[in-house]
């Protein structure tokens, strides 16, 4: 029931987002033409198919990927404050992706694919590093986790600037890198969307068998191991799948912060902490959240566009601090 409600909200968000911008397409006109009882002007059609729809899909997929990877990492670290941005996996993905951009032109399918693959590798490496640094006897307390994540992610995202030196002339590499570090959803091409769509689909499917295992892992590693859970295998699977989703998000949107924190938390407040139940809702709510945020980001200061990462940082930062305070009050440091 709630799932259908969320689906309706997503459709509404798509409809509204498709309509707003420099050239307005009223929702009524759009619906009539979809029903075959009216026509869009050529300009409207071009804008819809070449600009708005790809952008809508990109925002929805990035939001979904970030939210689900946040959910997975929170389960892995047994800590509701984990988020792909906070724990440095986004930073690793950006560094990996930047390498790809400077190796091959990012507009080509091969170039984008390479970037996405390197982003995946970067995310895995950074999360493994943060996990090794922050793990104290099977627990990852808030303070070491945040410090390790902060240090690793700062190191990684700033080392992307080294690549600036390598960039000869005024190549596209630098522009792409800048937009990544700001967290901008760039105008994607359809092949790019297809690649990210595949990564997202694979990540979501692979998350399904992990969800119940994360519930067991919440009891602690030793207890989970006693109950017959293969802790090591589960941890590796979560790191791989979470990194795949982070890489999918970074490939299209760069460093977008706190989405993986806000969305799972809101869903947990509404539906409780069962990961198996949270998974589909988090995927859907993440899509809605970032689609709305991106629509606001591209229209609120029109004709200028705000990077959506700026917007999520503005909402997510205070939210993160609130959660941190709450975590201290509940004393699971």
């Amino acid at each position, binding site marked *: 029931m709630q799932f259908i409600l969320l689906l309706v909200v997503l459709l509404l968000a798509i409809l509204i987002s498709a309509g707003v911008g420099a050239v307005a397409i009223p929702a009524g006109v759009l619906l009539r033409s979809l029903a075959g009882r009216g026509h869009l002007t050529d300009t409207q059609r071009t804008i819809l198919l070449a600009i708005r729809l790809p952008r809508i899909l990109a925002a929805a997929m990035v939001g979904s990927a970030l939210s689900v990877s946040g959910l997975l990492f929170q389960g892995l670290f*047994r*800590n*509701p404050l984990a988020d792909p941005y906070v724990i440095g996996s986004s930073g690793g993905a950006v560094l990996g992706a930047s390498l790809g951009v400077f190796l091959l032109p990012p507009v080509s399918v091969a170039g984008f694919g390479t970037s996405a693959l390197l982003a995946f590798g970067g995310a895995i490496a950074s999360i493994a590093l943060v996990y090794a640094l922050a793990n104290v006897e099977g*627990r990852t307390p808030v303070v070491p986790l945040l410090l390790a994540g902060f240090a690793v992610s700062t190191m990684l995202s700033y080392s992307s600037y080294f690549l600036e030196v390598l960039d000869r002339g005024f190549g596209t590499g630098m522009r792409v890198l800048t937009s990544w570090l700001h967290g901008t959803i760039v105008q994607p091409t359809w092949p790019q969307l297809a690649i990210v769509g595949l990564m997202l689909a694979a990540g979501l499917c692979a998350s*399904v*068998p992990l*969800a*119940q*295992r994360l*519930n*067991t892992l*919440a*009891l*602690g590693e*030793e*207890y*989970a*191991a*006693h*109950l*017959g*859970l293969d802790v090591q295998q589960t941890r590796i699977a979560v790191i791989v799948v979470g990194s795949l989703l982070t890489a999918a998000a970074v490939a299209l949107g760069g460093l977008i912060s706190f989405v993986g924190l806000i969305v799972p938390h809101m869903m*947990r407040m509404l539906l*409780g*902490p*069962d990961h*198996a139940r949270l998974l589909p809702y988090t995927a859907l709510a993440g899509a809605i959240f970032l689609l709305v945020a991106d629509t606001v980001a591209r229209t609120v200061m029109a004709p200028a566009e705000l990077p959506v990462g700026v917007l999520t940082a503005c909402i997510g930062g205070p939210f993160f601090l609130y959660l941190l305070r709450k975590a201290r009050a*509940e004393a*699971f440091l």
Partner: protein
Amino acid sequence: MKELLTFLDVSFGYGECAILSDFTASVPADARIALVGPNGAGKTTLLRIAAGTLRARSGDVRLHGRPLTSLSQRAIARSVAMVPQDVEVPFPFTVEQFVRQGRTPYLGWLGGFNPSDRDAVERALDLTDTVHLRSRIFNQLSGGERQRVKIALGLAQNPRLLLLDEPTQHLDIGRQLELIELIRQLADQGIAIVAAMHDLGLIEGTFSSVWLLSPERSVRQGPPRRMLSPELLEEVFNCPSHRAVSLPQLLLVPKEATHS
């Protein structure tokens, strides 16, 4: 009586420090065994070895005659349930969601629950008298409720043997007696019990055997009357006994204990 779990010349230690050496004992299917000994004597270690989460350095631990090392942890967890002392849950799981984790060794690849899993969870809640707590948040329970719910998780595993690590610790005397009563009921249901116990007054009448662990000596076994003698306790706990007590003392004893 058929033996459920046997320890054969089991040795274990952390680093240089030996905790158990050449320990041989058996847990019959109707066991009610209390582990008694000072902190660090190896009570929890022994329980972990029995639960399969720690591996003995040498020797053999057998479940139904088969070495634990030859069984998967899933198979072990279907016969042996460990109720640890402290459980920390970072998310607000409800009691029901918490107890459902006891079905982990039975779940398939996707982790879906079938009717027999649901039945086992209901039975576990029922046996521990925690049905009314099912929607409460585990982290917000009182000490006594928490302890019962932890035992419910163990029972959801459908175990033949229940290992309890300090089940009465941090409980007020009323809750302690309730918990002892629960342990008796479970033993009457045919579940073997091995419990590390600090509250020596709760042992007699409920447990039929005591394993006395001390850091220097090998494990001694015997009925509570003999093992809980002042002389032995004085030696094991390394403390002079104060037999002349000037203050009035109150000892609460579980109901049927007086005539057993």
